[in-house]
């Protein structure tokens, strides 16, 4: 996964100020199959699709008052939309086809990011926009402030953080961390190592674990709902300082917490296996029985 530095011999597609509301852009540039691509945009959208060609195709419209720059080498390239007035930047929409194994790095302000069919690594940063990933990238690192992050697929590992947006992963991933402050967290699938943490958002986990994994759930006041197959092998260590614990996975009952406050539950299900630690300050915790794992 070596990122090589691209020389800044940018070929500036400086479209400049235009009397048109938007200006079209259409470019094709050669890129190695595992080349690196770095994209900056402010407002609008960036849609990236993987394809089986050793080149990058850029199509789209650049908002009025913005200029588009692109350049680099076959090992790596960079493109960005420059705004004359950052406070009121107009929307630019880019549709970019990239080699399927490319390494993608995108940073926007409010432009939505959508990536499909890429198997390389993804680093996606947005302030107010949304991030959507479809497919099976080798790894995903996605960060937003108040936007949603939705991953539909099976990345090798995934890190997704938003403050107030929803963070969701539907698929399988060996190593997952999903984190919010007030946004919800949803996971449907299978993982070996997972960390799901929020302050006031609600966490919903529906799926299974790989054997000998380690899973952590952490919430201050949001609810934690974990739905698992009846015979999942896991060792549970659950503490809620001031909240409730409901166990419908098996017949073990939680006990009162320290000083008669809150609840605790330590138990093994189906001879144990994956270590599951759940910590909640005052949010309710529920273990539920779902469909048997396939």
């Amino acid at each position, binding site marked *: *996964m*070596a*990122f*090589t*530095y*691209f020389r800044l011999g940018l070929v500036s597609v400086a479209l400049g100020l235009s009397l048109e509301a938007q200006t079209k852009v259409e470019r094709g540039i050669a890129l190695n199959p595992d080349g*690196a691509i*770095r994209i900056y945009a402010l407002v609008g959208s960036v849609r990236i699709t993987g394809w089986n060609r050793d080149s990058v195709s850029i199509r789209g419209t650049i908002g009025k008052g913005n200029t588009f720059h692109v350049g680099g080498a076959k090992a*790596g390239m960079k493109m960005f939309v420059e705004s004359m007035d950052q406070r009121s930047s107009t929307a630019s929409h880019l549709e970019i086809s990239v080699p399927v194994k490319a*390494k993608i*790095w995108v940073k926007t302000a409010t432009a939505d990011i959508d990536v499909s069919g890429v198997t390389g*690594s993804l*680093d996606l940063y947005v302030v107010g926009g949304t991030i959507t990933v479809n497919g099976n990238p080798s*790894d995903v*690192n996605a960060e937003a402030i108040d936007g949603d992050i939705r991953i539909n697929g099976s990345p090798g*590992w995934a*890190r997704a953080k938003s403050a107030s947006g929803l963070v969701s992963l539907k698929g399988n991933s060996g190593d997952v*961390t999903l984190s919010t402050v007030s946004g919800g967290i949803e996971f449907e699938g299978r993982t070996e190592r997972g960390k799901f943490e929020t302050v006031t958002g609600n966490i919903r986990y529906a799926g299974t674990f790989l054997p000998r994994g380690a899973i952590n759930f952490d919430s201050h006041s949001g609810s934690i709902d974990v739905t698992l197959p009846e015979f999942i092998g896991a060792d549970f260590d659950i503490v809620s300082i001031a909240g409730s614990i409901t166990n419908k996975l098996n017949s073990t009952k939680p006990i009162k917490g320290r000083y008669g406050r809150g609840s605790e539950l330590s138990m093994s299900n189906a001879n144990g296996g994956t270590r599951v630690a759940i910590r909640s300050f005052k949010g309710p915790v529920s273990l539920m029985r779902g469909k048997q794992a396939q």
Partner: protein
Amino acid sequence: MTIPPGAASAAVSPRTADAGGSSDVIHRAQAGDMDAFERIYREHSPKVYALCLRLSGGGAADASDLMQDVFIRAWRGLATFRGECAFSSWLHRLAVNAMLEAARSEKRRTARVLTMEDPGTIGAPAPAVTPDVAMDLERAIATLPHGARMAFVLHDIEGYQHQEIADQMGIAVGTVKAQLHRARKLLIKALDK
């Protein structure tokens, strides 16, 4: 605003960091972001592990221990990385230093308990009879005496210059050349078997 002395130079130049998004990742890791450090690990560990595997000559367990040592040192010393060289080069130097220190410790330990056998053959796996010549070469490298193995791996595989190897190992250039020559001779002999 007062900037602490040396702080400005601590910033990683994007020109010398492994580029793309990596300079941002390094910044984050320097700021204590463990997830960013994991990113660094994911990006660089295959090359570091390959280096550790060949330098240690002792198999996957030793290589894993050495690689763990390398990344722990990297975490501790991240603030000292100022971008004057590529980050991968900096990690490589850490790996070589870690290997040299490990070898010195091992030498002190084994000198107390072992006979006068060639240290390079102690614990080394027997060369496998396999049609895969590359695998034969890997196994042969693992059986090299320590100094010869270091010189060969660093020079012929990793592309270091004689002077660079001499500086890092704390030996004379002439010694590096002699060890390299010895390594090549032994490898050719091993592969001819």
